[in-house]
């Protein structure tokens, strides 16, 4: 993981990615959160600029305010600090399917240029080289959330010309766009190198910003297809010392709690 010196001093490329994702959540939004990087980013947002963000986990915990990051999607911490806890059938119907979620946070093993996501298999479905965990809540988060923020580290293995399986649809295999009564789909893909947004017409993911110290050529080299670059590529703001302090304290509290 690259160490970068800028703004508030030393930080990692993962911290840059998490801080950028946290900033993309607005105060008061209702957010459906997955475990791992999305959970880190969503809780950083809640503990910094967005204290009224509503976090919902697929275990049925709604409006949860965990002191430490959950290790699993059903940790007791999520239930104990929630406004309410509902059943799993209810969280996917009354809350997600009905359109009550503003933002869905997703990650995946593979993504293509139309932001379709694979978390099912590497190789053929019937005889996979690597069997991944599978869909979980992702296919319906991808279709029913108002918009989707995707977070994953950028490498040629994860940014592929053709995903081996479309678990969760972005803009379709051929960029045909969104179909049916659904949300707007992926609005941004946040990686450890920068930000990509879908072109409003063609839906092709386009590099719109790099993180400080990252060259456009480096992003191109870490992308498995001919990467489209915006005419003007911005540079993201480095993490502030406040953001880094909150994030590191959260991770340290989490580490201590899970070690106990």
């Amino acid at each position: 993981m690259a160490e970068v010196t800028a703004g508030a001093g030393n930080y990692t490329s993962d911290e840059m990615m998490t801080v950028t994702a946290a900033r993309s959540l607005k105060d008061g939004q209702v957010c459906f959160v997955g475990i791992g990087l999305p959970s880190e980013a969503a809780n950083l947002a809640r503990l910094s600029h967005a204290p009224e963000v509503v976090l919902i986990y697929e275990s049925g915990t709604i409006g949860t305010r965990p002191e430490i990051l959950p290790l699993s999607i059903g940790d007791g911490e999520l239930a104990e600090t929630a406004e309410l806890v509902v059943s799993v059938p209810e969280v996917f119907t009354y809350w997600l399917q009905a359109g009550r979620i503003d933002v869905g946070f997703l990650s995946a093993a593979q993504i293509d240029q139309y932001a379709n996501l694979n978390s099912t298999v590497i190789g053929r479905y019937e005889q996979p080289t690597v069997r991944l965990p599978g869909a979980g809540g992702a296919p319906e988060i991808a279709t029913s959330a108002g918009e989707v923020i995707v977070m994953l580290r950028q490498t040629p293995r994860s940014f592929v010309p053709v995903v081996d399986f479309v678990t969760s649809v972005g803009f379709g295999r051929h960029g045909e766009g969104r179909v049916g009564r659904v949300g707007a789909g992926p609005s941004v893909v946040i990686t450890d190198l920068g930000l990509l947004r879908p072109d409003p017409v063609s839906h092709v993911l386009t590099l719109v910003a790099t993180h400080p110290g990252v060259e456009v050529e480096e992003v191109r080299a870490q992308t498995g297809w001919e990467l489209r670059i915006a005419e003007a590529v911005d540079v993201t703001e480095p993490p502030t010392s406040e953001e880094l302090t909150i994030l590191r304290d959260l991770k340290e509290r989490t580490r201590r709690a899970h070690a106990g």
Partner: protein
Amino acid sequence: MAEIVPLGDAIGELVPDGATVAMEGFTHLIPFAAGHELIRQQKKDLTLARMTPDVIYDQLIGMSCARKLIFSWGGNPGVGSLHRFRDAIEHGYPHPLEIEEHSHAGMAARYAAGASGLPFAVLRGYAGSDLVDHTTVASIRCPFTGEELVALPALNPDVTVIHAQQADRRGNVGMWGITGVQREAVLAARTSIVTVEEVVDELSTRGPSHVVLPAWTVTAIALVPRGSHPSYSMGFSTRDNAFYTEWDGISRDRESFARWMREFVVGTKDHASYLDLIAGSNG
């Protein structure tokens, strides 16, 4: 009406080889003790349903109890892969495993339809996902609005097995915290087994999302304190996160998996002996 019986008797009588068994619990209240008992009794050819076949189904698959898996997310939560599940799918070891795969929303809807006595569930899901070509779903048109939706067959297990915090002496079951899809899974099943942390005179009414299953909806109850280990039972135990992490190493290798299962599950007579051995091995 629920009868309170020893766990071994409940599993022996209610789970024949070849049965469709759902063991539910969404990270919380996972019925591990009952899963271990299936292994001790060498159950075969089971169709195992579960939204999140984590370590409990990794053990059942690796011990050759399963013919088929119906699921929506197969990983070790917060840790990574399920190695026995992957070995079965990627290499057919210890034997090939048939799979029927859904999304969480789809599995939850299938249980809810089963609990409702309906033949199928309907939801706005699976749109644009390749899952449609690899699982049992069908397109259906709303007769009122014309909207295209997805239909899924109801899931009605032969037996649903869950773990709960309490039963009272009449057999009413109480649970709270994250209660997942357990109520639907029990009501969808022909028979059910509930292991509990304690048997009490009166059920408590504490904790978020309190759920009661009346005695007349449950077939058998077994008292198994800490029956959810390494998962947890809110108010009684915490999640053994260290075990989930250790499982990655234990299960990665076929031999070390087999050794662990022989020592801790096959070699112990019941859940209490398993817990003693686990406590001893943690020093």
